[in-house]
């Protein structure tokens, strides 16, 4: 039996990789991709804990997380395409009209 802490450490490492990608890449598409990595880390945590607690709650919640992630990816990428249409860039450092 694989200990639960192995799954949780893997989820923590994947979450940290997602955070690193979100903070270092300055491209909107890559930032959204890092958000998907973070959501997958949380999914892995939920499914592993649901397996070890002998319950179905974690897996049902994971199902909803996948659903909401799909909806969020669609809307986020729609916003990225609209941003590209008006500003001709998806580099977030250049979207600085509100800068003081």
């Amino acid at each position, binding site marked *: 039996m694989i200990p639960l802490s192995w799954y949780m450490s893997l989820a923590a490492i994947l*979450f940290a990789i997602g955070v690193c990608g979100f903070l270092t890449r300055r491209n909107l598409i890559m930032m959204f991709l890092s958000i998907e990595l973070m959501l997958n880390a949380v999914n892995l945590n939920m499914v592993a804990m649901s397996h070890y607690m002998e319950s179905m709650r974690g897996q049902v919640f994971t199902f909803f997380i996948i659903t909401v992630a799909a909806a969020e990816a669609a809307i986020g990428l729609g916003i990225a395409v609209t941003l590209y249409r008006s500003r001709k860039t998806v580099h977030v450092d250049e979207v600085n009209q509100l800068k003081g």
Partner: protein
Amino acid sequence: MFNYFFFLYCAVVIVGTGLLAITMRNPVHSVLMVLVLFFHMAGLYLILNAEFLAAVQIIVYAGAILVLYLFVVFLVSIREELRMDRFVPSSWVGRIIAAGIAVSLISMLPAFKLGPKGRWPVERVVEVTHTKAIGMEMYSSYILPFEIAGLILLIAVIGGLVLAKHDDEASAK
């Protein structure tokens, strides 16, 4: 025994492709690395006796969301990122923050205690297949979140349509 080797293989590939995905310059390569990562996540779900979730992961994440990402990458026609003035000048701030998050999450693991066990031991999940187990749980206790998830998807479809409309009607007036 097989579980150990499979878990170690999936873990190594997940961490490796994750690191490659966030460091590659070409966005198409990053999306392909994330695709490999999603397949190995589905593999981990399989050894956790969650085969319905593994199938959903492959169909929805690898099959729909990543294809959407690829479409947008090609639509936006990203070149390799040039060196330009960044908002936060150094990338090391992000890396140190991420390393700090990993260290603090992993160091809190020994203090973690599981709660009371539920009513679904592994034998019962295997006997009533996992799909039926999720169905029994979701349609009895979680029917309201299920309907709300349907509403969220409806909002996403309408929002996507509105965002993708051209402004021809507005400018023709």
